[in-house]
């Protein structure tokens, strides 16, 4: 278990580095934040000065950096320039829809991905292999915003089966498909190729030499070994979920972190962008930790090496 404690310790410096990188890049952005913040309001020069002071923009960059860091440890990530609301509440407000969307996308992606992967991998170069691989290829070639719009057009407006705006579970179906499709394509291709690799391994030939039936070989021997690369892909592709969220929320006009981030970047709302980026990186690293954990379960070599390590 101390492997995971060590891994957790590494998370903090990575987050810190990610946050610093964003702080530096965002400060390069041209445009004076005070102007932007007071954009809408007429304000005399002294008003402008005290705004600059309480934003702490008059202090040199390094001092701002340390003071921001101290507040961050206390959980206060500063206030958004535009809405003057604390950034953490804004994230909390918009978090749920994105989480629902990501989970929907994940379930759709993993389910169809692994299904088509196994369906194709067990009979390489057969009809069903080429068929499912073409579908998987379509999965990764479909631009998510186009497929989203087509889904709305077909199922929403013309057929009217699925509510477009509505609340709750039903309105989650189309967006999850849009986010999940790219995910499913990647998973299917990888599951298939790793299954084919495993079926060519020597220990499969040993199993056959033991007179084990083909069906049992696929289930008992090859599936478990074939699952390692797709799980790795799972870890890396979480990033795609966040990307998907930005576009899908725009197409389906759903509120969420994706929208928030897009508006924040365009409106150069520095504290909000920083908080969002750190939040997304934290989620990304956290999910990768879970993936690492599943490694241990699937592959004894890794588990044993870690207990010793």
């Amino acid at each position, binding site marked *: 278990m101390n492997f995971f404690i060590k891994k957790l310790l590494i998370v903090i410096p*990575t987050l810190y580095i990610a946050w610093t990188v964003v702080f530096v890049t965002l400060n*390069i952005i041209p445009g004076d934040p005070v102007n932007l913040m007071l954009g809408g309001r007429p304000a005399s020069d002294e008003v402008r000065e005290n705004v600059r002071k309480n934003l702490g923009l008059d202090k040199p960059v390094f001092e701002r950096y340390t003071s921001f860091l101290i507040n961050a440890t206390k959980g206060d990530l500063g206030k958004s320039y535009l809405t003057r609301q604390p950034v953490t509440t804004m994230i909390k407000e918009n978090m749920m829809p994105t989480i629902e969307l990501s989970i929907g996308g994940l379930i759709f992606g993993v389910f169809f991905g692994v299904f088509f992967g196994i369906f194709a991998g067990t009979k390489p170069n057969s009809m069903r292999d080429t068929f499912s691989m073409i579908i998987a290829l379509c999965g*990764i070639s479909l*631009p998510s*915003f186009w497929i989203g719009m087509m889904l709305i057009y077909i199922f929403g407006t013309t057929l009217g089966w699925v509510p477009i705006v509505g609340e709750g579970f039903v309105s989650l179906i189309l967006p999850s498909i849009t986010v999940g499709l790219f995910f499913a394509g990647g998973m299917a*291709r990888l599951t298939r190729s790793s299954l084919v690799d495993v079926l060519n391994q020597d220990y499969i030939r040993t199993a056959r030499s033991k007179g084990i039936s083909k069906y049992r070989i696929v289930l008992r021997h090859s599936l478990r070994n074939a699952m390692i*690369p797709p799980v790795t892909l799972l870890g890396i592709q979480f990033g795609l979920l966040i990307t998907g969220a930005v576009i899908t929320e725009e197409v389906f006009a759903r509120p969420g972190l994706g929208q928030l981030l897009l508006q924040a970047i365009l409106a150069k709302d520095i504290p909000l962008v920083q908080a969002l*980026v750190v939040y997304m990186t934290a989620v990304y690293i956290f999910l990768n930790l879970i993936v690492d954990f599943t490694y241990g379960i699937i592959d004894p070599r890794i588990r044993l090496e870690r207990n010793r390590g």
Partner: protein
Amino acid sequence: MKNFSIILKRFLLNKGSAFGGIFLLIIIIGAIFAPLIAPYNWNEVDTGPRLAPPSWDFLFGTDIHGRDVFSRIVYGARYSLSVGVISVLFGIIAGSIFGITIAYIGGRVDIIGSRIIDVMFGFPSFLLSLLVVAIIGVGLWNVVFAVGLASIPHFARIIRSAALQVKEQPYIEACVNMGFGKIRIMFNHILPNIFPIIIVIATMDLGGAIISIASLSFLGLGAQPPEPEWGAMLSSGREYMRYAPWTMIYPGLFLFLTVMSVNLLGDRLSIALDARQSVDKGKV
């Protein structure tokens, strides 16, 4: 040269790459000879009635400004393809140099290098390109640079692992034994041997790059009016989706078919060149 002819035969014979190849050829020819193929000037307002449905003289109908959608798609091919290729080229060249150097020099340089890659991998590449666009401003060529930059960690990681494998080979040790310099070994011996992998991941990622650039244009950050980039066309077509769906369907369809054929070629190329190793671990 027998080896090369085998690869070519394996590559062409296969029906998948045939479809991919033919479609891509059509797109490329369309892009180059756009002025001849496109019936109208892509930027000509009111060439026909506004939002007219597809008909013989307007194959894909017209958009809100009365511009012929078919001509705009043909000219749009120039943008979408060239844009994708340039951003991947930029990413691949930078990624290769960075990947090979940290792989070959190894030691502390390799550790720091791979930590940088891991941190950059912390950001989803799309988020990275968004940030870059926020800094350098909107515009098609800014987006190209942003997507290229965002793809460097991905390329560097795969090329580094491929270079590490080649570095262990005895023929590289022989080069060291014969007193060759580091640069000569890296670019005269290691690079040619990982070239197949570079080509494969480049083609596989070309599809992804085209989509990312189109997505950024869709969000309004990439191509500005009146550029006929497919992503931007999709975005403006969205307003009139219900009564003029053709302004949205056709640009998206061509974007999809182009990316599909590029991915198909990438797949077949990887099988033909039998670059089994790390690349096949999935389109990461």
